[in-house]
């Protein structure tokens, strides 16, 4: 029996599919108990490594030398904020692509490619799971920092930080669609993933301010939205003076628009190309 449905009915059912995709991702994740250990241990490992690194290099968590470049002595909090935001970068850019790759390897990709639901709906469900996962790790990092250092990062300011991160994530998902298209055509892009991740971390002010970079690298950083999100967040949190926050918000909105349009168009091209070449489910 062919089921007719109105556009509104379809939209509401597609939205429900997002919830089911999120539920499926959580269940699949839960079925491997060792992953729980990651959730508990990983935030501690990151923070403690940075803490002891600071103790070894500058005898504490603050550095006057660092202040000359970054406008703040509080180098540990500077890096931890960068690190927490960077978690979203990795998952937003690679989360959907990696999930498509997982489906390819599991053999389920063609089964979900042949359903009437829009691919975007499935991607949003996957992205929500990744977003929840990243939020937890980032929150834990900030919480642990607040517990071991005389600094409070978990207060009302966190909502503004989340707002800025939200604007950042949209543009990153645009890039994510682009990389998902690459996965559909070229399959194994893990090495490429690692290289891009490391390059973004190198160029953008995740662990140090832009002013320490050679001019050409600092110039490239201006085309990566993470740069503006980090500077806006640090300015707002009093970790340096980077100028008015609304400028950054404007730039992030512009990046959102450009990257989402570019990413979506590339994904559509990649899907067509994969269907033409018959490589959707190939390994």
């Amino acid at each position, binding site marked *: 029996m*062919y089921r007719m449905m109105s556009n509104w009915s379809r939209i509401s059912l597609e939205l429900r*599919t997002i919830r089911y995709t999120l539920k499926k991702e959580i269940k*699949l994740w839960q079925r491997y108990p060792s992953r729980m250990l990651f959730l508990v241990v990983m935030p501690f490992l990151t923070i403690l490594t940075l803490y002891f690194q600071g103790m070894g290099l500058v005898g504490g968590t603050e550095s006057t030398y660092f202040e000359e470049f970054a406008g703040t002595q509080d180098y540990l909090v500077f890096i931890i904020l960068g690190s927490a935001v960077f978690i979203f970068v990795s998952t937003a850019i690679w989360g959907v692509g990696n999930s498509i790759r997982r489906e390819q390897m599991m053999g389920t990709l063609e089964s979900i490619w*042949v359903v*009437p639901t829009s691919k975007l709906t499935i991607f949003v469900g996957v992205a929500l799971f990744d977003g929840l996962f990243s939020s937890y790790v980032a929150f834990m990092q900030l919480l642990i920092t607040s517990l071991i250092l005389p600094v409070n990062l978990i207060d009302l300011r966190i909502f503004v930080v989340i707002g800025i991160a939200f604007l950042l994530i949209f543009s990153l998902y645009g890039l994510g669609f682009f990389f998902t298209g690459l996965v559909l055509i070229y399959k194994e892009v893990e090495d490429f993933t690692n290289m891009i991740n490391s390059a973004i971390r190198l160029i953008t002010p995740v662990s140090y301010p832009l002013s320490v970079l050679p001019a050409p690298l600092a110039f490239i950083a201006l085309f990566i939205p993470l740069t503006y999100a980090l500077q806006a967040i640090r300015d707002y949190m009093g970790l340096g003076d980077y100028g008015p926050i609304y400028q950054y918000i404007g730039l992030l909105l512009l990046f959102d628009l450009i990257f989402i349009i570019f990413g979506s168009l590339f994904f559509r091209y990649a899907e067509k190309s994969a269907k033409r070449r*018959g490589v959707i489910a190939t390994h």
Partner: protein
Amino acid sequence: MKQGKELAIETNGLTKAFYRKNGIINKIKKQESIEVRAVDGIDLEIRERELFGLLGPNGAGKTSFIKLLSTLLLPDKGTASVNGWDIAKNSFEVRMSIGLTLSSERQLYWKLTARENLEYFASLYLLKPQEMKERVDYVLNILGLEEQKDMLVENFSSGNRQKVALGRALLNDPPILFLDEPTIGLDPAYSKSFRKIIKERINKKENKTILLTTHYMEEADQLCDRIAFIDKGKIVALDTPRNLKKSIDEKEVITLDLTKTSDDMIKNINRLESVNSIDELIRNDSELLKIHTDSASSCIQDIFGILTDHHAQIISYRTSKPTLEDVFIKITGSGLDV
């Protein structure tokens, strides 16, 4: 079904080619990539509620044809409509009209239970909450999986995994089902019960149009209303199983499995009066002769005499009525297990 359409599936000159790349060195030498036509200008009409079989050896183009119809591939040339919807222009409507099972065991989430798999796919088929519950319960019931519904799919037998996959294809109650090698890898008893479900329940009782691919001739013979033989991407014969078998005149086929043959030996057998024709199939460690005759009893003694004269060792032999495989061999010159 879309208004004004009577056929469940219709294709006109449907063509799909793949290109094998030559690698960097050959690219530098400017050698062209090799074109493999998986589907080569297929014209086909499948009627509503028909159980239609596509029979052919591995690599004949059966799966590519199903993937084209289910919008997983884009055609290079030609057109096709499924339930009245164009596969290239109306992919949403086509997907709403079909259910698909693929031959891979890995088409389900092994770390989810049968019920969790079905519920997830029901949401992907855009079923409303109440509908979802009813359909999931219904397919679990008709496939006899109620007791195992909360077991992880990884703990299922191959047969039960295939049942869950079939259940998934039925979730949206589609008018058309594509079943790609539905019984591959299943033991004979399970295959039999699976075929019964396909024929009796899904085709006859639920009136669904089914296009199934197989390279098992008995499966096609038992199940299908009509069969198309596909070889190298082309349909080489199409009719009911009965008419296809009638299309070869012979009443009996003697199948001899021999360690070796020779041209002289085959010529001598062919000279026998009651032998109409011989098909020769070379296998890994033996050679198969299919001798088509009006009467096996009238020529079998003479054939054994010729084999003895040529020192041929017989591994096995049998006499049977012509099967679909015999028809296939007659038409294409090769067997189904290629």
